[in-house]
């Protein structure tokens, strides 16, 4: 039995998603303790040429399945392919992305393999014996639980995008790409894809933003101004749950326990009180600025710079101040 660490990579339209590189970064750290290999599993159609990229981000071996049955994500097709690879190589640990694909695939695999699965982990650690300690938030983020899977293998976990850090890409890194053929049981393909439609409005991905301006209940009447301000400094807007539930912001912009996890360089929270559920989605940001008129707001506990003020009033001044600073930088 190998003791390898497997990462089930995710691709869309033959482009590997960033979360896969983040998972490889996490797997690499675990492998440094267990002294085993990191293996990436890449499934799709027309993706073979991307396999080298996974090596640059930390994979020692890449198992590629190139098959027209895997052109689009469908549960049964992907489950069969993943199952056959895991069965053959018997890894010790398998990591999935906690995306709509990973959250669909991983439970199916855990049932097929008769093993455990810990969803939405925020921290992964391993001891020399290869026991994986999977930490995840429970009860709305107030409590953290560390989970183990003592008697079943592989130990499996899903991790959200933005939680783990990818390694720096190393183009000189060496590894092996192995192409694998899968014997599909097509009689089990009972779900047929009619069409897959990409929605343009969803393209603004807050997980990729360097600067995020988060809007809470306190600024619900100023969203238009904030959006203009954000685009003037190359930032994207996001939101707390309050504004999504009331329809002021779209779901894809929601940060927190039931929304997305983000880790931008700068997170500016405007009029957000900072419920634990929200904090869970943003507290790993590099630099957090919070502006709120309630001095006791929990957002200030995670903020690096907290300003007690009305976010609405500060906005025009901030705009001006940033323009001035930029002008100074340019003139120097």
């Amino acid at each position: 039995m190998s003791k390898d660490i497997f990462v089930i990579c995710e691709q869309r339209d033959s482009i590997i998603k960033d979360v896969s590189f983040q998972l490889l970064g996490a797997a690499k750290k675990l492998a440094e303790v267990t002294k085993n290999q990191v293996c990436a599993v890449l499934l799709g159609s027309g993706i073979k040429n991307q396999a080298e990229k996974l090596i640059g981000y930390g994979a020692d071996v890449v198992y590629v399945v190139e098959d027209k049955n895997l052109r689009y994500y469908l549960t049964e097709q992907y489950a069969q392919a993943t199952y056959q690879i895991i069965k053959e190589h018997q890894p010790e640990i398998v990591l999935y992305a906690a995306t709509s694909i990973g959250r669909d695939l991983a439970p199916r695999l855990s049932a097929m393999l008769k093993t455990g699965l810990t969803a939405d982990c925020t921290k992964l650690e391993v001891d020399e014996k290869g026991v994986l300690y999977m930490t995840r938030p429970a009860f709305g983020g107030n409590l953290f639980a560390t989970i183990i899977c003592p008697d079943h293998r592989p130990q499996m976990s899903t991790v959200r995008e933005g939680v783990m850090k990818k390694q720096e890409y190393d183009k000189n890194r060496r590894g092996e790409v192995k192409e694998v053929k899968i014997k599909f049981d097509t009689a089990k393909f009972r779900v047929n894809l009619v069409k897959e439609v990409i929605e343009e409005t969803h393209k603004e991905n807050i997980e990729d933003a360097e600067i995020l301006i988060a809007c809470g209940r306190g600024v619900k009447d100023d969203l238009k101004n904030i959006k203009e301000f954000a685009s003037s400094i190359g930032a994207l807007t996001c939101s707390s749950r309050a504004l999504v539930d009331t329809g002021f912001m779209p779901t894809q912009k929601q940060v927190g326990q039931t929304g997305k996890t983000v880790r931008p360089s700068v997170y500016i929270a405007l009029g957000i009180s900072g419920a634990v559920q929200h904090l869970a989605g943003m507290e790993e940001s590099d630099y957090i600025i919070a502006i709120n008129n309630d001095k006791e707001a929990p957002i200030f506990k995670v903020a690096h710079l907290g300003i007690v003020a009305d976010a609405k009033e500060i906005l025009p001044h901030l705009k001006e101040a940033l323009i001035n600073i930029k002008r100074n930088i340019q003139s120097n």
Partner: protein
Amino acid sequence: MPQITYCVSLELNGDEFVLRRQQEDRYQLLRVKPPFLATVISGNSQPRYMNVKGIVNQENIDVQKITFEHLQLEAASIGLKGSPTKVKTTFTKQHNSDRDLIELPVAEAANLIAQKLSEKHYI
């Protein structure tokens, strides 16, 4: 049994169902013949009000109860005992205290933010 997760709509079309599965930046339309298992995104449909006839009839309807005995499952394979994963420890979060909390007039506060952002080369 096939599974279709993250559904936002479901329609019957002849002997097949057509489901819309929502993903991050796209949706899929899927065709499937029953039986299948679908999970639906919460808050996606509004429950209708109870109707009067239903309220009146509720007394007369015998609700079938399914218990552990009916399911014929092994006790060791379900519940806490049957779970392959175990809770090792739990803890609550500690926040570090290396933070600045500042009360200033808005114009000065704005300048301070801009200055911090520029010091740290974020802009």
